[in-house]
């Protein structure tokens, strides 16, 4: 343990669209770069016509019947342990790590979480649906709201892929547009599902351009999209599409800082390299802003700059091109806010590592007012803006939060935060933002997004 053994880059592979059990070699090719430089995969992309052909084929067979539950538990087991499509679990983890920059430890955790969440689908379903027995002869069946589901995934983390598995679980036929940097997770999940006995006609895997993803979302009966503010904007008010955009997870810090609170905020911001939509990105505080920001910056500044494959690594790495983008973004934000990390860190927001990858250092900035337009900015690595908050500011600066972590004794404020529609989840005290058990909504009731109640009255 801890011995730095050089990890050989996985051999480049070919990834192609996969429709109803068949691989369709596409003539439209792109290369998927590794964070270490070079290529990880040769990707066959689905243009709109191929996506349309897949959609037509999927729809022909879509019957709304839910596959047997055992298929999902078996698929989860195979996903974690089996060699699928010639890929061992170790190769899979390494491939996604080299493509997304997630650490090996984060990937191991992601595989465990995926297995757990797929295994919990029956429990989650039961927890998210109200009772259906209304006396003899009267009942409610929860049935899919449509037949065909489209999932437009991002590449920040493997676990969100559970969302389309859940659609399959309830009987949808599913088309998956993988994230451009992580086609590997849905590809492997589909292989595991098919090996476990899923009907091949239930699923299609379509690496494709954003415009083709939009086309799939328009044509499908239901869908989900993950992405940045621009990618999700047009789907915001569409009833048939669940939107998973920037999380803008915030903390309201209304108590004195001690080490446990600083550790809690630092972990909220940096867990999984800061890639989750539930990672903390803003702290609003009644305490002295500079002091809070300094302590958080000092704590985050202690995180080591290590290649993603090392056991102790916790921070995300990126390739050269993304490193340049991040440098520019951080420079622009530093120009309008106070930088606290500079006193506790190297000063360069991106560090070049020996293995060829680049590591964005955590950044803590502060604003002088709660309604500063930069508050709410999300970057794909540990990035926090600290801003002052007073009673006079009210609930407005807390709005538009996927998770709001309240550290306060004021019951009224907690109640107001819970009643605020644009705050999707509230955690209280030093509870990490993604903490949940089956049935705790992540952002609305996803099971009821997929299913609708249908009355069934039978003659006694």
């Amino acid at each position: 343990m801890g011995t730095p053994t050089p990890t050989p880059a996985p051999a480049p592979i070919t990834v192609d669209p996969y429709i109803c059990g068949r691989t369709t070699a596409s003539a439209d090719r792109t290369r998927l770069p590794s964070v270490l430089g070079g290529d990880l995969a040769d990707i066959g992309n689905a243009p709109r016509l191929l996506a349309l052909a897949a959609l037509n084929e999927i729809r022909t067979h879509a019957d709304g019947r839910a596959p047997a539950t055992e298929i999902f538990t078996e698929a989860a087991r195979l996903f974690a342990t089996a060699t699928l499509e010639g890929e061992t679990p170790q190769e899979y983890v390494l491939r996604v790590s080299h493509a997304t920059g997630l650490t090996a430890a984060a990937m191991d955790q992601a595989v465990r979480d995926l297995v757990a969440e797929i295994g919990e689908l029956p429990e989650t379903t039961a927890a998210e649906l109200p009772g259906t027995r209304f006396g003899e002869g009267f009942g409610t069946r929860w049935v899919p709201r449509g037949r065909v589901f489209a999932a437009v995934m991002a590449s920040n983390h493997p676990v969100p892929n559970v969302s389309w598995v859940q659609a399959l679980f309830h009987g949808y036929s599913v088309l998956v547009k993988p994230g451009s940097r992580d086609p590997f997770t849905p590809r492997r999940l589909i292989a595991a599902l098919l090996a476990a006995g899923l009907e091949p006609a239930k699923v299609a895997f379509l690496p494709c351009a954003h415009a083709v993803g939009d086309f799939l979302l328009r044509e499908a009966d239901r869908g989900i999209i993950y992405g940045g503010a621009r990618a999700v904007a047009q789907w915001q008010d569409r009833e048939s599409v669940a939107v998973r955009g920037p999380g803008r997870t915030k903390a309201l810090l209304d108590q004195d800082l001690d080490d446990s609170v600083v550790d809690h905020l630092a972990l909220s911001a940096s867990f999984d390299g800061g890639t989750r939509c539930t990672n903390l990105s803003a702290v609003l505080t009644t305490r002295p802003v500079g002091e809070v920001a300094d302590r958080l910056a000092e704590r985050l500044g202690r995180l080591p700059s290590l290649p993603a494959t090392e056991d102790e690594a916790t921070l995300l790495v990126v390739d050269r091109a993304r490193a340049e983008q991040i440098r520019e973004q951080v420079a622009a934000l530093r120009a309008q806010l106070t930088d606290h990390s500079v006193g506790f860190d190297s000063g360069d927001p991106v560090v070049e590592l020996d293995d060829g990858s680049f590591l964005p250092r955590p950044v803590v900035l502060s604003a002088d007012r709660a309604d500063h337009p930069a508050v709410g900015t999300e970057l794909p690595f540990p990035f926090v803006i600290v801003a002052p908050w007073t009673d006079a500011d009210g609930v407005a600066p807390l709005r538009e939060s996927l998770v709001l972590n309240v550290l306060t004794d004021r019951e009224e404020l907690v109640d107001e935060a819970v009643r605020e529609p644009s705050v999707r989840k509230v955690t209280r005290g030093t509870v990490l933002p993604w903490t949940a058990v089956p049935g705790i909504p992540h952002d609305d009731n996803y099971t009821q997004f997929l299913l609708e109640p249908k009355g069934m009255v039978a003659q006694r």
Partner: protein
Amino acid sequence: MTPHSDTEFDAHIRKLMAWHFGEDTGSPFWLGKKGRLGFDPLTDITGLADLARFPDVSEELRTVPAQRLIPRGLAGRPFRVYDSGGTTGAPKRIVDSGYRSTLLEWARERLIASGVPGDGNWLHLGPSGPHVIGFDVSRYAALGGGVFYTVDLDPRWVKHLLGAGRTDEADDYVQHLLDQAETILESQDIAVLNTTPPLLEAICARPKLHARIRDGVRAIIWAGTSISAESLRQLDEVFFPGQAVVGIYGNSLMGVAPQRPAAPGDPYPCVFEPYPVTTRLELVDDEGALVPYGERGRVRLHLVAEEMFLPNILERDSAVRLAPGPGSVVDGLADVQTYTALDGVRIIEGVY
């Protein structure tokens, strides 16, 4: 005899230099430039390689009065003015009297060689109005004794909508066009459909319309925007397996370069060739040198016809350069794509 080989084309160039820069025959546009070129086109331009010495005048075609483009030697003939689509800004203008018709007779033979029927009625689902494509397609229909149906399409409106981010309205407009095409296809006998790749995609997404075309039309011609290799294969093998699916590369300035008949072992399913009598399409690198065969370069046009002289024009496209096919003297162009960095102008291909 028509010039084909480079030697013949060089002779053709020398002959037309005398025409375009002769005081009695040249156009006011070119005669006005003669003294400012820095060379004498009558003596210094001896062949194809010299055409790159001319300035690229295509920008001026946006503003010059079209009458100044007409050669004095053709003053008595009726001319029409056509606009380009305006993809890169204000439209450019060309003038045409009889040249285009000659070009289209040649192009039609190429289409027939690729499987397009020589007779039957045509439906053009694309621009007419100031755009020369509408004339082109009506001409193909007439040459085969067929009737020409058209659905009017204003490509500039589509580009305006897309440029303003009004994609829903652009989609509505496309559906409005398809409604009209459907009306024609339901009552009229159509042998050939001429349209654009985005409209073909939209057609394929409407099951009834798609079935009507798949079962009732004998050939599909696509032109106007680029298409990916896989999209082409989907059209050919999945959506229209029983039809000839034939591409035409072209624009208002250069005319048309239909797909050449597929040769065994062709690395690309669709290779375009221009009209060898008047036109050369060169694929060049950033320094203006020809790229080797098999490499991608930007399209540079030389059009040397009696009615129009358009040398050394850098087009908005790039393509892979291929050796001339059997019996041909001009290079082939494969995998045409929009050239991306064009002086910071955002290129919106739209549906046309």
